Structure formats: structure tokens, C-alpha cells
């Protein structure tokens, strides 16, 4: 009897927590397709707000994808070889390097953005292009890629594989391409999903780094929250959810997110 009461109390508590998280998300999704939020769902369902979002903000959505993919490209080119180098080299220096590249996760995005602005804000053509935002995203997401690949190297005894390939006479470049990268694939995939998800949702850095001509999706969201009617803000949020939730699901399937939930984002 007592055990049942405890179970019921715990279940009720957890359901309340879930409601706190889910109810506002569902509210916002519904508001995005409701003709008039203040009259409620009775006023009818409509896609007009989503259409208006597309007219108003399509450029921010596309720009966010461009920046996310470019960020992914850079973190792949820089991060995967770096993880291999750090793993093989080992020693104290590698640990220090790993420590330094992980620092951006411990420092608020606002501080990093300010630092980038104060250093490169004067280079006006760089400052005005979307590359400036991409640089911020690379600094912030690179540690996820490197750590994700390093975790795979640590788990798969890649050193032995590498040495066997070397003893068969394969050159370093060939070993990297034909042995290391294929073996690191799960880590690369997990890291890539993380990088894209984080980049698409990044706001703290981006708000400081953007210009009126380089707005991204989350910047546009903040803009719409401040200045648009609630239905449009909600429809825009709905568009964001539709993009980000599949990535999150994929991340949980492929990345073993549950084992390292802290190793993340924004």
C-alpha cells in the first residue's frame, strides 16, 4: 500500500516536470498554426503565419543552414586530423592543447563574441560577412568534434590498427584516409550532428556578431519575439522545432547522447 503511494507520488511529480517542459512547447506550436491566439483554437487552423514567416525570414533560415554546413566543413577538416594527432602524440602537451580547445565551453559566449569583435571588428569586409559568424561557431563547436572523435579513438585501440597498417608499408596519409577515418566514423557522425545542431541554434555569440545583413535563424527569432505578433513568433519557432527536433532524435540514436549528456550545447 505504502509502496504504491510512493510510486504514485513520484509518477505525479515526474509528470508535472514533463508538463512544465512540454506544455509551453506545444502551446507555441499550436499558436503558430492558430488563426487568432487570443481566441484560441476555435478561431481555426491556418498556415498563413508559417507562410508569412517564410516571406519575412527565409533568408535567415537559409543563412543558418549555410553557416551550419560551413562550420561543419571547417570542424571536420580541422578537428578530425587534430584528434588523430592528439591521440597519437599523447603526453602532457596534448592534454594542455585539449584543455585549451575545450575552454570556449567554459566561457560564456558573450565573452568570446566580445573578444572576436574587439580583435577583428576593424576588418570591415570580414566583419560584415557571414564568415565572421562562422568563425565564432567554429570556436564554439570544434571541441565537440575533437572530443567526439577522440572518444572513439580511445575506445577502438586505433593505435594498434595504425601500427599494423604502418608495418604493412602504408604511408601516413594513406593510413589516415583508409584506416583511421573509416574507424572513426561513429565519432565523426556524432560530432557532426552535434556541430550542426549547435550551430543552427547558436544565439549568444551570434547576436553579438551579426549585422543587419547577416541575421541567422535564432537572431531572427529574437527579432520576431520583440517585434512581431505572437502568431508569427510562434510559427517561426515552429519552423525551428521542425528543423532541430529530427537532428536531436538522430543525435540520441547515433551519438549515445545518454552516456554523455553533459557533452553538449547551448
Amino acid at each position: 500500500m505504502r509502496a504504491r503511494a510512493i510510486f504514485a507520488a513520484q509518477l505525479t511529480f515526474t509528470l508535472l516536470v514533463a508538463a512544465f517542459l512540454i506544455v509551453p512547447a506545444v502551446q507555441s506550436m499550436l499558436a503558430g498554426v492558430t488563426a487568432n491566439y487570443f481566441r484560441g483554437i476555435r478561431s481555426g487552423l491556418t498556415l498563413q503565419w508559417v507562410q508569412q514567416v517564410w516571406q519575412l525570414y527565409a533568408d535567415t533560415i537559409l543563412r543558418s543552414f549555410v553557416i551550419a554546413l560551413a562550420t561543419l566543413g571547417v570542424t571536420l577538416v580541422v578537428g578530425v586530423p587534430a584528434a588523430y594527432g592528439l591521440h597519437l602524440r599523447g603526453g602532457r602537451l596534448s592534454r594542455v592543447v585539449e584543455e585549451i580547445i575545450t575552454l570556449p565551453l567554459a566561457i560564456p559566449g558573450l565573452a568570446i563574441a566580445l573578444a572576436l569583435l574587439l580583435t577583428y571588428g576593424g576588418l570591415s569586409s570580414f566583419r560584415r560577412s557571414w564568415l565572421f559568424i562562422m568563425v565564432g561557431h567554429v570556436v564554439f563547436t570544434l571541441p565537440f568534434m575533437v572530443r567526439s572523435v577522440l572518444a572513439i579513438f580511445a575506445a577502438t585501440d586505433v593505435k594498434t590498427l595504425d601500427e599494423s597498417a604502418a608495418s604493412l608499408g602504408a604511408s601516413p596519409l594513406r593510413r589516415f584516409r583508409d584506416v583511421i577515418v573509416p574507424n572513426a566514423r561513429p565519432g565523426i557522425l556524432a560530432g557532426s550532428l552535434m556541430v550542426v545542431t549547435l550551430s543552427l541554434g547558436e544565439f549568444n555569440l551570434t547576436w553579438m556578431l551579426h549585422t543587419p545583413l547577416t541575421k541567422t535563424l535564432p537572431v531572427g527569432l529574437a527579432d520576431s519575439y520583440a517585434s512581431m505578433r505572437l502568431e508569427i513568433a510562434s510559427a517561426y519557432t515552429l519552423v525551428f522545432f521542425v528543423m532541430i527536433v529530427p537532428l536531436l532524435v538522430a543525435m540520441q540514436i547515433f551519438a549515445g547522447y545518454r552516456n554523455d549528456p553533459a557533452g553538449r550545447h547551448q
Partner: protein
Amino acid sequence: MRSGPPRAWAAGGAQSPMTKAAFIRICLLPLAVVVAAFFVLPMTRLVWIGASGRHGIAAYAAIVLEPRYAASLLDTVLLALATTVATLLIATVSGLFLQRRRFPGRALLVAMLTLPLAFPGVVIGFLIILLAGRQGLLGDITLALFGQKLVLAYSLAGLFLGYLYFSIPRVILTIMAAVEKLDPSLEEAARTLGAGSWAIHRDIILPALAPALIASGAIAFATAMGAFGTAFTLATDIDVLPMLIYTEFTLSANIATAAALSVGLGLVTWAILALARIYGGNTVAANG
């Protein structure tokens, strides 16, 4: 993983045109360039500029000496502490429950609790407005029940709800993973020795969860200290440190102060996470 005997990589390297050591250097070069140019150099400059204002290096002391900044720092720390304590309490109760019990709908419940993982701070601010803003659900409910509209969204309470929203999914996942690794034989032994459920929780389960609690608590704390998006969306009369930095920089063009404050904020969040790593295991912050 990193220690071990020196590697005999001369074997392959000797036959190829490029030695192994050279190849490793090439692998690390892009990283060195990117990190030096876009992180180390800018951060050094930030620290430098923080000390280059009217007050020189004393700008850093102003964070704790100047009443307005000190008040903002205190508010931010208290808010982060409240968020951390509340998140840990909620997540421990729910995490233990979800990992220990099996019931229909459990997987769905876990999915619902982890869905917000990818929501950035700005979006969470908007959700808090829908929940507890002027036209919010909470207002409607309290109006119907007590005849008065409760509006929390635009104050510290709203920010607290936002940070709670952000932290709960992460901390629940960490705690569930830690509960999964608990050794059930310890609890069995305690039970056969006659320990009650409360004593088992106090003396066995909670101490075993301590590293996970410290690690995830530190992340919740550091995130709440540095989060900008949620405060930005809710902003009416909230003067937490990140908002203060933002207004000093953009509205007052007080660049040296903004730099000094953000260096101070960065040091605090970094120190919290470093301490937690010493006492609790691996931690990486979340950027809210």
C-alpha cells in the same frame, strides 16, 4: 589512453617519404592556427582591453567594488545557485524514479523530458512568456482559481523558470546514467542489515550519486551564470551580469568595462567547472 610507452612508429615512417612525427605535426597545424587566431589571440586582447580603460587594471576590482556591478554579480550568483539547487532536487527525484521503475509510457516520458535539450535560450525565453507572461497559461489558471493574474515571466522568477527549463533535461539524463551504474548489491546488503528506505537513500544512493550531482550541478550553475538568450528575450528589468555586459557594450559603449566584466564572468564559470571536474568527474558547460 594518452600515457604508455614510447611508440615505435619508426617502423612505418622509415619506409614512407614522410615521417610519422612530421605527419602528426601536419595534422595538428590547422588546429593550432584556428585556435591561436580565433580564440587565444582574441581572449588575450579581451583581458588587455579590460585593463586599458580609464581605471586601468583597477577595472577588474570594480566588478566587486562598484555597487552597481557588485549588486548585479550577487543577483546573478544567487539566481544561479537557486537554479542549481532546484534542478538537482527535481532531477534526482525524477531521475531515480525513471531509471528504477518500469511502467507503460516510461519511454515516452523520458523522451518528453529530453526533447528540450536542443532548445536555445532565446526560444526558452519565449516559451516562458507563453507559460507565465501577460497572456500566459499560468495567468489564466490563477485568474480562474484565485481571481488574480500571476505574471512571473519578466522578473527574476521568469529567468529562474527559464534556467530550470534549460537545466532539467541535462541533469536528469546525467543522473539517470549515474543511477544505472549504481551497484545494487550495496543496497541489498543494507536492506538485509535492516536499513530502511530512507537510510538507504541517505547513506548509499546519494553518496554514490555525488560525483554526478557535483558535475551536473556545476554545469547548471555555470550555464545560469553566463546565459544570455533567455535573459535577452525576457528582459524588462533584469540586470543579471550577461545583460549588464551587453548594455555596457552596446548602449553605453563602455568597452573596457564590458571587457573586464566578461573576463570576470568567464573566470568564475571556468573556475566552477574546473573545481567540479576535480571533485566530480568530467564536465562540459552548456551555453544557454
